[in-house]
């Protein structure tokens, strides 16, 4: 028999128990912490700050040709010029209006259809299959048809953005709905909740984390779609500004456009995250 006898196990146990008492407290074996340390307030800025720093160093030392990538301070001064001329605000406003109306339509449709297909079998049969098939087609491949159906005006642009937003919102909301714990459904039944109350008090609470996750993906997708549609025969917007600058080889204006996209993306993602923290304050998770 190779297995340790009962006496051996007992002896080991005694030794283990004695260890913390016998050894000085410093040497006592610490429990490994698997949860994360509480995050520093602006810790996430460290990486981006370093990146800008390297960029600045390369530009200042002449390693980086300004025709390839202008220096960070050129971007700032060009940005200030563009604001003085009023071009930046004007184009930004147009772009933001496109993106946000696409976002609103897409997210609303995503949540509504997810509710129908998530909470009724017939809705699921009708809607979910179509959505899954459509998922296989990249949205950008649909643009020729969109142009054919909706022309090259604002309707086409907002529609493309809305469709891009729709998918992540629908998919995450739908899977969160389908993942509602059956125990919570039983509870709602024993409490005699009406269908509407079940939706508002139980389903909404259970679905909100998924919905907000979908919305975060949706917001990112909205900016992506915006970039694409604004390069299609647009006459205004940040994308138009960048396309125009490309034609005149104004790399500094192109850079400003890029920075604006980054700022917009970050700001909107931050807004959804803030919303998430407010709405989901009941949760206790690894990252808090």
């Amino acid at each position, binding site marked *: 028999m190779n297995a340790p006898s009962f006496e051996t196990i007992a002896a080991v146990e005694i030794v283990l128990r004695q260890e913390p008492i016998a050894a000085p407290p410093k040497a006592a074996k610490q429990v490994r912490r698997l949860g994360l340390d509480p995050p520093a307030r602006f810790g996430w800025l460290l990486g981006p700050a370093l990146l800008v720093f390297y960029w600045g160093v390369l530009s200042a030392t002449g390693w980086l040709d300004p025709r390839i990538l202008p220096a960070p301070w050129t971007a700032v001064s060009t940005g200030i010029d563009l604001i003085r001329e009023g071009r930046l605000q004007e184009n930004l406003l147009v772009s933001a209006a496109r993106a946000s109306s696409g976002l609103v339509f897409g997210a609303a449709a995503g949540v509504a259809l997810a509710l129908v297909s998530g909470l009724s079998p017939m809705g699921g049969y009708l809607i979910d299959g179509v959505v899954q098939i459509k998922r296989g087609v990249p949205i950008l491949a649909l643009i020729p048809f969109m142009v054919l159906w909706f022309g090259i005006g604002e309707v086409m642009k907002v529609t493309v953005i809305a469709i891009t937003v729709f998918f992540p919102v629908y998919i995450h909301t739908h899977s969160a709905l389908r993942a509602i714990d059956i125990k919570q459904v039983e509870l*709602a039944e*024993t409490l005699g909740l009406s269908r509407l109350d079940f939706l508002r*008090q139980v389903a909404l*609470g259970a679905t909100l984390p998924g919905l907000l996750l979908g919305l975060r993906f949706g917001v990112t997708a909205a900016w992506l779609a915006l970039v694409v549609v604004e390069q299609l025969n647009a006459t205004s917007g940040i994308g138009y500004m960048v396309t125009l600058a490309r034609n005149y080889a104004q790399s500094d204006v192109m850079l400003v456009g890029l920075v604006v996209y980054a700022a917009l993306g970050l700001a909107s993602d931050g807004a959804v995250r803030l919303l998430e923290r407010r709405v989901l304050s009941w949760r206790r998770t690894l990252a808090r």
Partner: protein
Amino acid sequence: MIPQTNIVSPPVVSIRGLTRRYTLKGVLNGVDLDIRRGEFVALLGRSGSGKSTLLRALAGLDHEAEGQGQIVRPDRVAVVFQDARLLPWKRALDNVTLGTTGPDRRRRGIEALAEVELSGREQAWPHELSGGEQQRVALARALIRGPELLLADEPFGALDALTRIRMHALLGKLSRAHAPAVLLVTHDVDEAIALAHRAIVLEDGHLAADVPIALPQGPRRGEAAAALRGRFLSLLGVEAAA
């Protein structure tokens, strides 16, 4: 002693020839059961004996089960599950008042929480409460509905021994104060003796025994309780040490 009214009042729960079949688990074979107003009945049985199936049938949660039989149950039925089943996104008070209506629902919720000794914790999130506290919120959620029948499915099974003793005292107090008919599913013989007027034992889907627990209120010890304990344990297939 069982109150005199129990003998004359009509039963609030009446089950006749109840049969239930699930594809995977839980079988009931012709169960007959009456529970009178204000009567506290403990339902004992080994695991797989059909305890939970009977309770789920009474709670109306057995949509997918096949079977026959007749169930008469009151309109106001409340269920307490083994897990507290609080909605984590609602504060304690909102969990208690969930599904209630009326302008005074908030006040009634605060009163119900006070009854389970949780005054001041109305705004706590469920994850901030201990297991015993969560189960007390679940009890308050059941009480606020003024149930005529309270169904409890091993409500204290997940609690530590000390908390369980306190919960026994609380449930005893509340059931005397509100006098609903109670069906308490448990595998704990001592819990049944401590709380119930009557204990029924399920075995392989039929009632194997129906035993009145005619002991005075308060701590139930002594020879009579010990004899009952031995009898229940042997009904459950455990030979108790004398």
